[in-house]
């Protein structure tokens, strides 16, 4: 049976070798071999022409004459800065430039003409109401407002309401579902931005699994919402941000393993501005030394005013989420590093974080780092004073494929090596080195449920099933990171929010099916719970569905119980959480939004709109 065992052992060879030997892949490899000799001859001729035309003009200074100088390194560095690079890259560039004396980049400067709404009609003032993670970096949402109107999207329609207290009314509607989208789009992931002059709305619509639509609407006259243009991006929508007039959009483009490389659409990210597909040029695609997945993360930088694409950048890696500061985009990719053995696989969760600068309109890869553990969401990252802080769930497990009744199963092996906890890393973003870390601070088998940073503090909630501690970290001295916690308390928070005045708000579960909203604060030696509100109801775990008003200490959200939907508004007053209102509001709580304006609460959901004093 030894040889049979050998045959069976061959089944465990790395997948890359199996794919490599796949018949279609071999055929592709050998395609055109017959023409190799002819091609080689042509290649020689082309090479000679290329040498003449494309041999690059020297772009680096020749410093060899200073080679023996003890300051050679300094001279080299100085000369790199001082050296004036030739105007033309090569002879071909020189000839072409001389012939046409015009240098237009079709891909990076597509113009859609006037794209703004008519500013003479609407002289509204923009009012920021999204609780953005980073000040000045606006996030898309289902609700935005000006001083005159509230703009709300329920996933299927964009609606405009006047701000007139009890007399508020709907004054405009745009049907997304009636748009060009033929079938599947993900209404729960739709979000939009309102321009600073309040005349334009930019909708981001994930469509199918492979494309993202950006639709720009003129809302200067709410009664006549007009579509201005549509841009289609390849890839699944990941996230977006609006900052300083730049709209940053991130997508993930997955490439099939059997992609046809003669068809660029199958393996190169593209954008369609209405005049056909335009593919990212090779110099805009970064290919790291080792590629673990055939997916691109593609980042687009649009000028929000006219939706002209200023830059785009793709790299072969997968990102589930992004964190954006005023200058940098951080992409995150958590996955298991597999150490494959004969009959089992040891899996260690790791996260690859990459930083891309987007200042000066152009993207530049700053660096990347791998930390142990998986990242829950964008709130798990924070950059402060050139230090990137990251909280991860560390996770090591072992799995094995087992055959039972002729079927193959992947089973997690539970033993002492299968444990989870949480770790905190501080990374110097100039050197890309970990400069401080707190490993496995959470009790074993717990995972990170929510994280918030606030300057020199970090708040982390970890839990095992429905029992959690909340940690307060003091990161003011990275050589001496200290932390306190609540100890074991029931429930856990799916969102942690800094409520101001040293208060931390936790929104989560007390037990299965029971909502718990809790206020924490730091005491001398531990973190204490000040008060909590509990109700047997289900709620949305989407942070943006909550109304957080720090000034008035309001907390609002949609909930569902007894098969009906409601909106509740709580206020933290002195030392207690008080429920101010609870009103029926039809529609899924994930789409519920509310805004508090001058003593009135305006509430919106998929099928309802209410104003309460």
């Amino acid at each position: 049976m030894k040889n049979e065992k050998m045959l069976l052992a061959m089944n465990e060879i790395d997948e890359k070798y199996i794919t490599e030997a796949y018949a279609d892949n071999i055929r592709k490899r050998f395609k055109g071999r017959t023409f190799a000799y002819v091609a080689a001859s042509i290649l020689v001729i082309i090479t000679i022409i290329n040498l003449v035309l494309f041999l690059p003009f020297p772009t680096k200074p020749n410093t060899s004459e200073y080679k023996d100088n003890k300051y050679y390194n300094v001279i080299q560095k100085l000369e790199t800065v001082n050296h004036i690079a030739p105007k033309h890259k090569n002879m071909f560039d020189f000839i072409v430039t001389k012939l046409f004396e015009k240098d237009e980049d079709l891909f990076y400067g597509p113009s859609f003409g006037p794209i703004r709404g008519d500013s003479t009609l609407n002289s509204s003032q923009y009012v920021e109401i999204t609780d953005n993670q980073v000040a000045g970096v606006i996030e898309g949402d289902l609700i935005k407002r000006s001083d005159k109107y509230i703009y709300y999207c329920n996933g299927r329609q964009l609606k405009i309401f006047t701000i007139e207290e009890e007399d508020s009314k709907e004054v405009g509607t745009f049907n997304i579902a009636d748009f060009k989208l033929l079938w599947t789009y993900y209404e729960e992931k739709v979000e939009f931005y309102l321009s600073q002059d309040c005349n334009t709305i930019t909708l981001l619509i994930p469509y199918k699994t492979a494309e993202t639509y950006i639709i720009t609407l003129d809302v200067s006259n709410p009664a006549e919402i007009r579509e201005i243009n549509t841009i289609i991006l390849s890839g699944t929508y990941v996230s977006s941000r609006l900052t300083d007039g730049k709209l940053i959009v991130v997508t993930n483009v997955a490439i099939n393993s059997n992609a046809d490389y003669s068809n660029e659409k199958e393996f190169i990210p593209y954008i369609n501005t209405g005049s056909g597909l335009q593919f990212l040029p090779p110099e805009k695609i970064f290919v790291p030394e080792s590629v673990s997945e055939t997916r691109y993360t593609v980042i687009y930088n649009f000028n929000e005013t006219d939706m002209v694409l200023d830059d785009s950048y793709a790299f072969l890696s997968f990102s589930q989420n992004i964190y954006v500061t005023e200058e940098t985009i951080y992409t995150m990719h958590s996955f298991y590093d597999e150490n494959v053995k004969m009959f089992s696989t040891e899996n260690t969760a790791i996260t690859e974080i990459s930083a891309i600068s987007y200042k000066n309109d152009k993207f530049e890869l700053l660096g990347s780092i791998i930390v142990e553990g998986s990242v829950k969401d964008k709130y798990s990252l924070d950059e402060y004073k050139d230090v990137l802080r990251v909280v991860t769930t560390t996770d090591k497990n072992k799995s094995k494929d087992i055959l039972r009744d002729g079927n193959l199963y992947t089973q997690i092996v539970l033993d002492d090596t299968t444990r989870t906890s949480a770790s905190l890393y501080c990374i110097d973003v100039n050197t890309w080195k970990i400069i401080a870390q707190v490993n496995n601070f959470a009790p074993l088998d717990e995972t990170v449920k929510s994280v918030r940073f606030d300057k020199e503090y970090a708040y982390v909630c970890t839990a095992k099933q429905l029992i959690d501690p909340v940690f307060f970290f003091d990161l003011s001295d990275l050589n001496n990171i200290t932390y306190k916690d609540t100890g074991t308390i029931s429930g856990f928070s799916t969102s942690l929010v800094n409520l101001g005045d040293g208060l931390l708000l936790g929104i989560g579960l007390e037990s299965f099916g029971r909502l718990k909203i809790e206020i924490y604060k730091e005491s001398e030696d531990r973190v204490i719970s000040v008060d909590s509100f509990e109700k047997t109801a289900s709620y949305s775990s989407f942070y943006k569905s909550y109304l957080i008003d720090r000034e008035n200490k309001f907390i609002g959200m949609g909930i569902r119980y007894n098969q009906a939907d409601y909106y509740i508004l709580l206020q933290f007053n002195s030392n207690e959480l008080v429920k101010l209102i609870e009103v029926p509001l039809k529609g899924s709580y994930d789409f519920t939004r509310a805004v508090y304006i001058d003593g009135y609460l305006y509430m919106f959901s998929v099928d309802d709109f209410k104003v309460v004093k």
Partner: protein
Amino acid sequence: MNDDMIVELYWARNEDAISETHKKYGKYCYQIAHKILNSNADSEECMNDTYVSAWQSMPPHRPERLSTFLGKITRNLAINRIRRDGAKKRTARVDMILDEMAEVIPDSKTISSDLDNELALKDAINRFLAQLPIQTRIIFVRRYWYLSTIKEIASLMHMSQSNVKMILLRTRNKFKEFLEKEGIEI
């Protein structure tokens, strides 16, 4: 439909996953099974078992490459079927390949079913494959994973059959030396 979408169907417990898998990879799985089982009925049964197994594995599994994932399941199921049914159901092709495999296994070693040894064997095979030139590796994997005939490999690789045979013989000898050097017991 692309692989990601098919995997999503499995995760959504949508039975279209099976029909889409069959549409895209049915022939591929059937060919793998047929090479081992040499029976239309058994191969079809094995192909159906593959779909059931994929349905039960996803979730929680999310394969990186669906084709390889399905191929591995099919191959495993087919080999287990011939192990269960004994030599009478083996194809001549499998017999031949098993004989070739027997050449590789060091003679002086005792039979061990110890898990560590099996882990070491798998690790050794992958390290051995990693150090082979790409063409040799493809030929080796085609022969001992896909169980292709010499003629099929020769046609795929645009080589003569004798050349393929020679490469396989040399690679098997190298593999034998490698296993001996590593002290791997089968």
